[in-house]
């Protein structure tokens, strides 16, 4: 039985001085895929500026706003309605001969096909010593290793809002052992890739009623590619596999590929942004 979701995304931007020229690009629309269907979009802004839909460089749908008059304040509201199939994250089988999957990881064509999600990025680069943080145990399956990694990160980082920001490098997060979902996810990506598993950063929403930890904005988790199984979602912030409550918007190498809001604003002075997201669902 599919669940009906309704997500409301609000953003308010306030500037000290007049803004004469601004462009925003939102990457916040739930993606349509095998279990998220019929996404309806309502989008409005307080300046009644025209909204354009486009596709970004990685193939995800974006919303763009470019007001044609000056302003000091603008609010955006987006509503997304869609239905989602119940996801059973454990609905797969592991080949008893686990060495086959490991061999595949070492196959050079495999590495070439997945090179985008195997290379390290500024947000997912580790220092030499840190690569030792989590090493795979080849006597158990790749999936089991990834679940162990999920647990490891869940225990390693204490969920704390406000100690890190978008640009905090991974090595600091490892040192502080505190962070938010982006940080959990970046560390997961870094360590899984370091063990040869293609891993991508996923940006989306989390149904907060489900009782899981996320923040009031966008949530982040990881997807790892397991040979013979495919992409599997891991949410290290909650030490679970991604399930029906994880609503996917997009994926990329790291946060940079997935930033929900990009703004090109030509203005002096300070500015403030407030985001809120609510997710509601009904069976």
């Amino acid at each position, binding site marked *: 039985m599919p669940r009906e979701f309704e997500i409301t995304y609000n953003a308010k931007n306030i500037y000290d001085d007049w803004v004469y020229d601004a462009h925003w*690009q939102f990457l916040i629309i739930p993606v349509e895929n095998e279990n998220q269907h019929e996404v309806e979009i309502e989008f409005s802004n307080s300046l009644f500026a025209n909204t*354009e839909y486009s*596709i970004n*460089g990685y193939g995800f749908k974006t919303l763009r706003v470019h007001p044609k008059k000056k302003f000091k304040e603008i609010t955006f509201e987006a509503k997304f309605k869609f239905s989602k199939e119940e996801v059973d994250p454990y609905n797969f089988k592991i080949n008893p001969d686990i060495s086959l999957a490991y061999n595949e990881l070492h196959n*050079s064509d495999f590495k*070439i096909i997945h090179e985008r999600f*195997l290379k390290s990025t500024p947000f997912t680069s580790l220092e030499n010593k840190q690569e030792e943080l989590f090493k795979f145990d080849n006597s158990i399956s790749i999936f089991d290793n990834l679940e162990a990694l999920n647990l490891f990160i869940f225990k390693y980082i204490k969920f704390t809002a406000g100690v890190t920001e978008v640009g905090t490098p991974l090595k600091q997060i490892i040192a502080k052992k505190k962070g938010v979902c982006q940080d959990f996810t970046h560390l997961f990506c870094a360590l899984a890739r370091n063990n040869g598993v293609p891993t991508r950063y996923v940006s989306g929403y989390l149904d907060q009623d489900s009782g899981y930890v996320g923040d009031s904005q966008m949530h982040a988790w990881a997807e790892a590619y397991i040979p013979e199984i495919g992409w599997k979602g891991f949410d290290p912030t909650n030490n679970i596999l991604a399930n029906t409550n994880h609503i996917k918007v997009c994926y990329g190498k790291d946060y940079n590929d997935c930033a929900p809001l*990009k703004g*090109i604003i*030509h203005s002096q002075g300070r500015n403030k942004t407030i985001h809120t997201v609510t997710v509601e669902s009904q069976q």
Partner: protein
Amino acid sequence: MENIENQIFSSYQRNPDLYDEIHDKKGKVKEIYQKLFNLYGEHTINDYVSLNNKAKASFFNQGITFQVYGDNNVQEKIFPFDLFPRIIDPEEWDIIERGSIQRSKALNLFLWDIYHDKKILKDKIVPIELITSSANYLDQMNGVNPPGGIYNHISGTDIIKHNDGKYYVLEDNIRCPSGVSYVICNRTALKKALFGVFNHYQTHTVTNYAENLLELLESVKPKGVDIPNVVVITPGMYNSAFYEHSYLAKTMGVELVEGRDLFVENDFVYMKTIKGPEKVDVIYRRIDDQFIDPLEFNPDSVLGVPGLFAAYKKGNVTLANAPGTGVADDKAVYTYMPQIIKYYLDQEPILNNVHTYHCSRPDELKYVLEHIHELVIKPVDEAGGYGISIGNRLSKQEIEKVKAEVKASPRKYVAQPIMSLSVHPTYIDDTESFEQRHVDLRTFTVLGKDKEFVLKGGLTRVALKKGNLIVNSSQGGGSKDTWVLKK
């Protein structure tokens, strides 16, 4: 020496170890240069002093200058221009031209491949690191089919003649190669100064570059466009190549725009004109990938156009060169050029590659560290001749410093044998005489779907400092008019 009456060359010192472009090994003036040599000999050195000053003033007055930012003022400088032209005979030019086209085509196929099936990686001809560790590989270009299948519409190939008399390629510039306007300015300046000499030679024209470029740009128009609107985009008038950008726009008869003149609406690109918005179809861009669209790449860029990349990806506008082309403009890729040419074209390279040692490979790193005094060490990702160390010119301490840097980040460096660039008589201001100076040659290749064109001339750059091998203008290089003779 012959022609002893040729007084302006009477003090010319010929170093027999260097390959002199106008003299043969015995010191005799080559046949092709004979007439020119005699014609120049009819003048006195005082004539040259005055002609040289006039040529300089002409460049200055035309505003063909670049700006040097000093401590508290901005100075305008001209690119030094040398009055003694370089002559390339038709047979040699044929090699250069075919070789330049071959490389451009191979690089284009390489780019298509690494943004599509990546066969060359799967076949293990080049290592995957060439793309995974390149800052210029754009993931966003994966699977994108640029119009006409062309990535490197415009290439600049840097070629030298070694003391074995053979041509070698030093670099393929396929991001935003500059210098073509100087080819044309040099020709104009030489004609003004010494028009008489042109009567004695059948020289190919160089003024047909713009029409060929425009034809190419029009040929890669987006689908569904009948007569494309072409523009040139520049970072602005403070860019050191601004003269060239305005020259190209003017001679093609198209608009020269800055990022702020363009905007994107519903994935189409428009320019802001006095009569309202006008759609733009093809953009010859002279800004780097990272700056073309702040929404997709560097968000701090004020040079680009928000939304441009999405419009490109949708096929509504063509960018030349294509985004992501820079990945093949990498000294590490250069070293695989013979294999790349062989792989895609099944041909032997027409122009030689300089043998390159990859410091990323342990055995080659060892060789480099042991033979550093006979090698040139180059960072793989610097342009403009920066960061180059020439082994036999370094002090002991400098050698140690370079070694330490290479050891610390081996992937960042490659090494090559020290090539001896050929030398050419060049008028030297300080001594008011002709002296040997090292030269190279940059050719300009335009590659389209069904066409290729190499400008018959190219830019001969000359290292004005005695003994210097680095010809880049940013390092005090000058240039010469370059004559390609008709068959």
